[in-house]
């Protein structure tokens, strides 16, 4: 399975509202290959028949009906996890669209848009420069007024472009779709994914809020909201909302509630509520030791919050013995050593944390303090200054994010957020906030 296939499958799964059904497990590779070969043959036949059917002069169908058939074909293509098959299914759709005579402006723009969808599937994620389909798609795109397109076509196009990693195009499409009442909730569903990919989590959060309000008994929307919250800024209001959403999800009796409860423990600790966190943790521990053992650092964190430093440190060291790259375990170890006044070991531990988390202000602060107590004033000063720079930048970012919440489409503000992240060396966040340029 190539990378694009994996990505496409992942994105498909993200977009699809989930019911109680659980996907079947993977079959043996050989069976899949055989099934794939059979499918290719079948699809080729269907394509051949389809083209002839589309083109059959004796079949009296109007443009709208033809458009509907193309839509169905494209949706089928989208459902196909294999990129090669998706492409094969999209060629006839593209050809068929060339034959359809638009009856009005709406259908003209929709036909162009659907062609772009077909071409986007054909081009895939590679975006090869000079690819004739790519060039054709870009030229077509210039001729489309998204406001004139059918809502369902706009949604499909937004989804396809998102899946192809063309975020700015899908953003344009979804922004237009969101301005309409028709299809709003599906638009919101797709918009959430696009916003997550763009790092515009505040908007994704607002959209999921609307979806949960729309269908409060649909666990999928709550799961979606929970996933956005899990990636959000970690501010106290966000964490409190995450607790509320997790508790709501637990009411649905969905599978894997232990993992949910562990998330709840983590959130409760973030809101300084170790008592409730302990209750939830013990509940999981009593029923699923396996779940607990999979997240040893959560127990260490809980013990640390409860003031049981030796036990917390013991777990952290065990984790580090197994996995020396565990930053969480190392940071906790450093905190405990710092709190116990073990300056030399705290410095050693925290310097290791810094190697992978240079822009963590807490680590610089702790190092600044440790060096000061250890009599190394210059190093202390250096880390305390870095702590101040990072703290100031984070304050700036928070202030900017507040403005972004008020003006979510202001590219200049996003640019400024990206600049601040760049200033503190957080390239990943800077990249997410920089408006897409493709």
């Amino acid at each position, binding site marked *: 399975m190539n990378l694009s296939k994996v990505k496409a499958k992942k994105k498909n799964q993200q977009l699809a509202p989930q*019911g109680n059904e659980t996907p079947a497990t993977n079959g043996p590779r050989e069976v899949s290959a055989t099934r794939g070969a059979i499918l290719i043959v079948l699809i080729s036949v269907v394509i051949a028949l389809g083209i002839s059917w589309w083109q059959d002069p004796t079949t009296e169908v109007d443009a709208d009906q033809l458009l509907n058939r193309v839509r169905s074909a494209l949706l089928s293509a989208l459902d196909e996890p294999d990129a090669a098959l998706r492409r094969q299914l999209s060629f006839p759709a593209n050809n068929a669209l060339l034959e359809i005579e638009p009856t009005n402006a709406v259908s003209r723009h929709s036909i162009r848009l659907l062609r772009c969808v077909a071409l986007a599937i054909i081009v895939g994620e590679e975006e090869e420069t000079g690819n004739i389909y790519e060039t054709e798609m870009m030229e077509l795109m210039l001729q489309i007024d998204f406001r004139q397109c059918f809502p369902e076509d706009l949604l499909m196009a937004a989804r396809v472009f998102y899946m192809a990693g063309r975020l700015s195009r899908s953003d344009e499409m979804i922004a237009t779709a969101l301005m309409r009442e028709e299809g709003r909730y599906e638009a919101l569903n797709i918009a959430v994914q696009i916003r997550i990919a763009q790092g515009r989590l505040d908007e994704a959060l607002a959209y999921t809020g609307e979806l949960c309000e729309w269908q409060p008994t649909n666990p999928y929307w709550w799961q979606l909201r929970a996933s956005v919250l899990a990636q959000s800024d970690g501010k106290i209001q966000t964490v409190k909302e995450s607790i509320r959403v997790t508790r709501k999800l637990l009411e649905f009796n969905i599978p894997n509630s232990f993992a949910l409860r562990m998330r709840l423990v983590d959130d409760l600790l973030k809101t300084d509520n170790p008592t409730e966190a302990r209750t939830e943790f013990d509940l999981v521990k009593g029923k699923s030791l396996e779940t607990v053992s999979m997240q040893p650092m959560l127990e260490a964190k809980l013990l640390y919050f409860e*003031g049981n430093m030796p036990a917390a440190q013991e777990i952290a060291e065990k984790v580090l013995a197994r996995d020396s790259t565990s930053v969480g375990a190392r940071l906790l170890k450093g905190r405990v050593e710092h709190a116990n006044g073990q300056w030399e070991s705290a410095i050693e531990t925290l310097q290791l944390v810094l190697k992978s988390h240079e822009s963590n202000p807490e680590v*610089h*602060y702790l190092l600044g303090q440790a060096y000061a107590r250890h009599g190394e004033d210059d190093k202390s000063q250096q880390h305390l200054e870095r702590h101040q720079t990072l703290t100031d930048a984070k304050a700036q970012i928070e202030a900017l994010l507040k403005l972004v919440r008020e003006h979510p489409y202001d590219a200049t503000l996003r640019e400024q957020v990206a600049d601040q992240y760049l200033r503190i060396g957080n390239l990943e966040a800077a990249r997410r906030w920089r408006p897409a340029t493709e």
Partner: protein
Amino acid sequence: MLRQTPLFLLFLCSLILSTGGCGTTDPVAPSPTTSPHPVEVKSTETAPSQSVNNNALLPSLEMVKETPRELQDGDLFENVAEQVGVDFVYQNGLEAAHYQLIETLGGGAALFDFDQDGDLDIFVSGGGGFSDPPLVTLGKPGVFYRNDLDADGGAMHFVDVTSEVGLAAAPFYSHGCAVGDYDADGFPDLLVAGHGGCQLFRNEAGKCFTDRTAAAGLIMPSWCVAGAFADIDRDGDLDLYVATYATWQPDATRQCISDRGKRDVCAPAQFAGARDYLWENCGDGTFQDITDGAGITLDGNRGLGVVAVDFDSNGWVDFFVANDVQPNALYSNHGDGRFESTGLVAGVAFSATGKMEGSMGVDVGDFNGDGAPDIHYTNYTLQDNSLAQNDGRGGFTQANSVTNLFHKSTPWVGWGTAFLDLDGDGWEDLIAINGHAGYEYQDGPYFQPSQIFRNQQGKQFKEITARAGPYFSVPHAGRGLAIGDLDNDGGVDLVVVNQNEPVAVLRNRQPYEHWVRLRLRGTQSNRDAVGAKITLVNEKQTLTRWIRGGGGYASHFDFRVLLPWNDSRESEIEVHWPSGGIEWFGNLAPKVTHELVEGQGKEKESAVGAPGE
């Protein structure tokens, strides 16, 4: 493909449902005129067009559903305010519904022996209100209670003598108070701080007070909250540090929206902090502003609490300033007239994780018995109160996590605080007085329970609020806390100033069985011996206490030092005088107040040189 089919079908269903197809109805489809986006909950910010119907509910005592439980045998404290004649209420003016920042700060109390008759009298600041718009803050008089304690150590009884002693005027909205014998005449003087400045009241031989503010040159057109008298230059008189809050003026049109989306008091961070003041006592009844020259450099610091002792053991008194939404300050006194801001390097500017806190009250004590002054300061909600352990050289380690105080106070907004040894075991316990600043904020209720933590052998703290007594069984809007032995029975009593609720006088029901009380009188040092360090060494432990300038929140604690005296054999007290001299005092009879006069003890070699050496 088959594997994807159920998901795809669901996706299609969702598409169909959401586009309103198949005859389904959309129960909550947004109308075109309404915003489809949920309203983002914001923290405080200006919103001039906010409807008055959206005001936060103004708190009243009726909102406290719980009634205090009955007094039980093992309770530490009993509120005897009514029985002993204390019925004063600090008022913050909330009833006018102007939702002004000044309403959040509250007031404090001072416990000192005004008339030198051997017992503690009580001053409580009055607070204030507002004029009709355009708003101006107005003062309300404080109260002064004379303690008519039965000379034989019987029941305490307080008489309101506010007018008689000349404290009935209220030129400004008041908050804190500080006490110090600035003119060294043997009678403690009173400083009252508030919006618009401070008032310095000279104690006229225990008969009345006279306002000497203008004569002393203490002109501070600022929002003053608390003060600390201390002798910064060891010239034998008390200088004065005044903590100021913010550059703020009342404004009825300013409206701030809370995280509940309601009009509420504004967050302090919306207003720039103000410059604190350091006044040098010129020795002739006047003071000189030496703030800038002395290096009190943290401009705009939003100071609320201040305490003065020698933190770095260099023999010169330093200041710790608890700042709200600004780094806390530690000003280390170099002894040459210059202070250095060392809070960041010392580890008290920020929280244990390097985050800025909203700090309010502060006290100094020795929680682990190592002889170095540790700091406990109270913080805003979702921030632990902080216990900073001194390494003896003025460097601190935040010790919450190793003393079981981690996350014990995070739900509450802390104000008054004190180190006090409640059970006479020699280990200083901790008290924190709580109450939210805003009226209806999401992060905590307005009325909050106060807390007491018992010190377990200097290693861990354990919350014992449940057996603290009826006052602690219900929430209050607490602010200032003053501590002192009001009935001279060997137990430290508490006076708590609540917002718009009668002052609580909490009598200690478990006084020490054996004790001595020390009253220090400086001769070379300042007369109140502010900055002195007192050490009692007995078989089991070393007890260290300080005569601190300032401390608590907006309050003044009894200058006298009460020590448990468990050792039946003769023990000796070591006093490090602020002048630099060290003396030993012995042969102290139990259950008596001893006046230790500088120069009358057994002299020991001086730890640090005299000024100028």
